[in-house]
Structures are given as C-alpha cells and as structure tokens.
C-alpha cells in the first residue's frame, strides 16, 4: 500500500478546490499555489526514488484488488513525466503572477490550472483505461475553461474548434473502450495486456487499436494536428505555454502506454502506421513553421514537429529509441514552455506578433535575446543542451533497426526547427532597433526569472544527463518488457 502515489493528483486537486473559496484573496492564492507546487514536486521525486528501490508501485483504491478495482500504477516513465509536469507548472505559475492580470486571477485562473495539473498527473499515473478517460476529461474540461477565459473574439473562435474536436475524440475514446471491454472483458491495462496476449491480437483487436491510435493522435497532434496551431496561439502566454508543454504530452504518453503494453503484437500494422504518421507530421509541421510570419503560429508548429519526432521513437520501438523518446519528451516539456514564454514576452514588449514588424530587440533586452538563442540551440539539439541526448538515442535506434526514412525525416525536421527559429531570431533580435529609449516597455523581473529558470533546467539536463540516466534506462526497460509492469500490477493473481 502506497498512499503517496495518489498525492501528485490529490495535492493539485485539493489546492484547486481550496483556491475556489479564496477567490478574492489573490495574495493567498499565489502563496498557496507555489507551496502546493513545491509539495507536488517533492512528493513526485520521492516516489521516483522509491520506484528505483522497490520496483513499480501500485495503489488499489479502496483496497479493491486488480483487475476488479481501480488503481494507480507508478513506473519510472510515468513518474519522470509527473516530476517534469510539476516543475514546469510551478515555474509557469511564477510567470503568471506578473503577467496574467487581476481579471483572470478573479475568474478562477489558479484553481483551473491546478485542476488541469491534477488531470495531467492522473492520466500519467492511472493503471485503468477508463480511469485514463476520466483523467483526460478532467484535464480537457479545465483546458476548455482556460482557453476561453477572457472571452476575446479570437479565443472564442478557436475554442469552438478546440472543444468540438476534443469532444469528438473523447467520444471515439469512449467507443474504443466499449469495444475493448466487449471483446476482452476488462479495462485494467495490465489485465488487458495479459488477455490480449492469450487470445492473440487478431484483426478485430487491431482495428480497435487503430481507433485508439486515432483518438490519441487527435489529442497528441500526430498528423491530426489541424486544430493545434490555431488554438495554441489564441490564449494568453502562460496558458499557451501550459498547453504547449503539457497537453500534447499526455496524448503521447497514452500512445506509448497503449502501444507498448497492450497492442504490441502487430507492429507491422500499428507501429508502421505510427511511423508514417510521424513522418507526415514532421513534414507538415516543418512546412507550417516556415510558412507563417506570426511568431505564435511558428512556435505552435514547432510543437507539432516535436510530436512527430517523439513518436518516431515509438515507431522504431527498440529500447534505445524509447530512451531517446523519453529524454526528448522531458526536454520538450521544459523547452516548449520556455519557447512559449519567450515568444509571449516578445509580444508583450513590442505589442506586435509578426516577425517583420519587430527588429533589434537584443539591444533593448539582451537577456531575452540570449535566452532565445539558448532555446533555439537546445531545440536544434546542440550538444551541451538537453535536446542533444534524445536526438542521439532516437537516431541510434533508427539506425539499429534500419528505419532510415524515419531517421532522415527526424533529422531534417531538426534543421527546419533551427531554420524557423533562426528566422525569428534574425528578424526580431538583430538589426536596427525599432523601440526608442523613451517608450521602451520595461521587462518585468517576474517574467524574466521563470525563463531563466527554464534555461538553467535545459542546461542542467544537458550536462547532468548522467544523473537522469538510471531513471530513463529503467523506464525504457519497462516499456520494452511489458511483463515487468504486468507482474507488478497483478502479482500472479491473473
């Protein structure tokens, strides 16, 4: 029994509920928010350590044993993501303090951020497919509120698309779950894996797996990303950063979990489909990132490219590629948050969003310029920064398994990422400054500090990757060998 397992979900949930009562006490909300984020980080790190000593942990709600009860399962993969989520949210909260504004803070902004985090952490931790659906909904409902909050015209336009597409994909999700329950009679993920291994993944089950592929592709933005750039560039900076860093990652996580634990018997069909979709995503994302002049659109398309890149790791499906994908997932959560913050700050400072309307920002805001430079290098995968190690491992996995088309697509997409960001860097930061000394908007410390913290993290992960390695290796080993997960959950009572 490990009640600590439920804490990464319960702490944000309780904080959110309590903050609803403190609607008009903004100072108290901020203090409680930060304290709760720190508590979540501490608890998650503790769990991650415990896993290394005792193996995969599980908590049966109400003492009902699996496969009958609902449970939370924590392996290294899910806990690494929970830790990253908690840290990223904490830092984003600091940015929100100085940028979001009174109106939002009175309209339950902080509670819904915490409900979102509760949903995200719950999705990472749950060991039950229906529970995964519920946690997805908790996360999505909060994101609906956050995307429409403020009620500007562009937000409402984009939110209609966002809500419609997500309601549709949730419906598909529910349908997939119903089919699966009708076919094998269980929804516990480990039990599903056992039963499917027993009866064999026939055509029927493969079709069901493709329904899940569609659902998670919609959520993660794999090929079906048409809704993503618009809705990620509509809300205020900090909400966009929260979405860019966390939401697609939950879809990616679900895809990894389902296609390594449950539907791993027909890689020729499912994993090839994922590979093809990943390549198309990278191509489409690159085209989008180069085509637009709106910097918010450019960074949103960068999210799309990263989704394709990470899922290339799943398509290759070797232990090394999984390691690369996990490293890159962690890196991407941090760096995408940083990128969205930087771009949002640029728009806040200049009041403009098109690259040709900005120029010479580095003269007025040198720190911001250099932070953008670091982000760019990190996303491109230059060695001392965090993007490097993930790219190396995915590349190595691709070569070992002979998936050369994926390899080429993955590394070319890196060049397009670099070029699209260089375009922003050269147009907006170099050249003659457009802002004269008098009406130079001061860059608030509260906006700069979170960016610096993220930059320190990307450097620290790049240099201290040795310290992260045992966790990532363990996570990849568990993904590669589903028996480890199954044994931990069912413990022989199949």
């Amino acid at each position: 029994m490990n009640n600590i397992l439920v804490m990464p979900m319960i702490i944000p949930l309780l904080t959110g509920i309590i903050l609803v009562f403190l609607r008009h006490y903004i100072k108290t909300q901020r203090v409680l928010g930060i304290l709760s984020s720190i508590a979540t980080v501490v608890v998650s790190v503790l769990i991650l350590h415990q896993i290394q000593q005792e193996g995969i942990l599980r908590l049966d709600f109400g003492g009902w044993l699996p496969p009958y009860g609902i449970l939370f399962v924590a392996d290294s993969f899910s806990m690494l993501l929970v830790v990253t989520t908690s840290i990223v949210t904490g830092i984003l909260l600091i940015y929100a303090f100085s940028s979001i504004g009174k109106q939002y803070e009175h309209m339950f902004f902080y509670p819904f951020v915490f409900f979102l985090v509760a949903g995200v952490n719950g999705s990472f931790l749950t060991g039950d497919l229906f529970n995964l659906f519920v946690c997805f909904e908790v996360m999505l409902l909060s994101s609906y509120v956050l995307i429409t909050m403020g009620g500007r015209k562009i937000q409402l336009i984009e939110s209609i698309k966002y809500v419609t597409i997500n309601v549709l994909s949730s419906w598909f999700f529910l349908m997939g779950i119903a089919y699966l329950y009708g076919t094998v009679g269980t929804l516990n993920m480990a039990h599903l894996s056992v039963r499917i291994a027993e009866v064999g993944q026939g055509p029927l089950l493969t079709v069901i797996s493709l329904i899940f592929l569609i659902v998670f592709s919609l959520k993660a933005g794999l090929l079906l990303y048409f809704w993503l750039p618009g809705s990620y560039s509509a809300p205020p900076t900090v909400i966009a950063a929260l979405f860019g860093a966390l939401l697609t990652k939950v879809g990616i996580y679900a895809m990894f979990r389902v296609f390594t634990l449950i539907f791993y018997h027909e890689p020729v069909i499912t994993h090839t489909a994922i590979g093809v979709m990943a390549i198309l995503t990278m191509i489409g994302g690159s085209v989008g990132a180069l085509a637009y002049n709106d910097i918010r659109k450019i960074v949103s398309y960068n999210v799309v490219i990263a989704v394709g890149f990470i899922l290339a790791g799943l398509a290759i499906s070797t232990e090394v590629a999984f390691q690369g994908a996990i490293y890159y997932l962690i890196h991407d959560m941090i760096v995408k948050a940083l990128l969205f913050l930087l771009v949002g700050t640029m728009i806040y400072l200049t009041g403009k969003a098109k690259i040709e309307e900005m120029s010479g920002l580095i003269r007025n805001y040198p720190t911001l310029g250099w932070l953008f430079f670091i982000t760019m290098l990190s996303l491109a995968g230059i060695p001392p920064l965090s993007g490097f190690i993930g790219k190396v491992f995915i590349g190595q996995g691709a070569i070992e398994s002979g998936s050369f088309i994926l390899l080429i697509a993955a590394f070319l997409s890196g060049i397009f990422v670099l070029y699209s960001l260089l375009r922003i860097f050269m147009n907006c930061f170099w050249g003659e400054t457009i802002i004269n000394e008098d009406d130079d908007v001061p860059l608030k410390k509260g906006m700069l500090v979170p960016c610096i913290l993220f930059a320190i993290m990307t450097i620290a992960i790049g240099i201290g990757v040795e310290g992260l390695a045992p966790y990532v290796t363990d996570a990849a080993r568990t993904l590669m060998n589903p028996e480890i997960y199954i044994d931990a959950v069912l413990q022989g009572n199949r």
Partner: protein
Amino acid sequence: MKINDVILQTVTKIVVFIILTFGVELFLSGHNNPGGGFIGGLVLSSAFVLLYLVHDIETVHKGIPFDFKKIAALGAFLAVGTGIGSVLFGKHFLTQAAGHFNLPVFGDTELSTVIVFEAGVALTVVGVVVTIISTISEDV
C-alpha cells in the same frame, strides 16, 4: 411585458417540495439500490431550476442566498476529503467504512462513510448545474 403566471407559481410551490423530497429519497437509497449522489443531485437541482424559471433570478437569490460555485467546491472537497480521511487512518485511498448502529427512532441502522462521499457528489452536481443554468440565463 408582465406575464400573469399565478397558476404556475402556485403549482410550483407544492411541486418543488415533492421534487426535493424525491431527490433526498433517491440520494438516500443510493447505497444498495438505484440512486445515489449524482442522480439525487440532478433531481435536487431540477427543483432549483424550476424556481429560477417561475420566479426571476433576484427573487430566488433572496430566498437562497448561496454562491452555488462555492457549493460545488464544497461538494468536491467533501468527496476528496473522504478519500484523504482513509489515508489518515492508514488505509488505502478512498477506503470506505460501514457499521450497524442502534439509533433511537430508526432502530438498527446501517451507517456508512459513503454517505459523506455521496453528499459531496450531490452538492457538486447541484452547484454545477445551477451555476450553468444561471450563467446562461444572465447571458441573454
């Protein structure tokens, strides 16, 4: 335009009490029979919605001076709180306890901590439904 709805208002005065009683009955029967916090909460909130329809929002607010958003939050707090409660007693998260008690008037009664959880669910449902309805009506 002033609509004369004396009949509607008079009927509502009686019907609301029937609905509320039925809601409580559904809520209490939930443990072993069809019913429970969610359905009970929906029926309870339908009574409030009926009041909103028949009278205007200000009148209802004068009679029921609660912030329904806070009621929803209170409900969620109760529901999560029962989960935390079991953690404090060193049991699995969300473990529920039940026992038989010999109460005056009722005699031998089964009491369970599930009722607190269900009450939380019911309050959340009432709070959310009434908030949604009143927000929509304010918009127009």
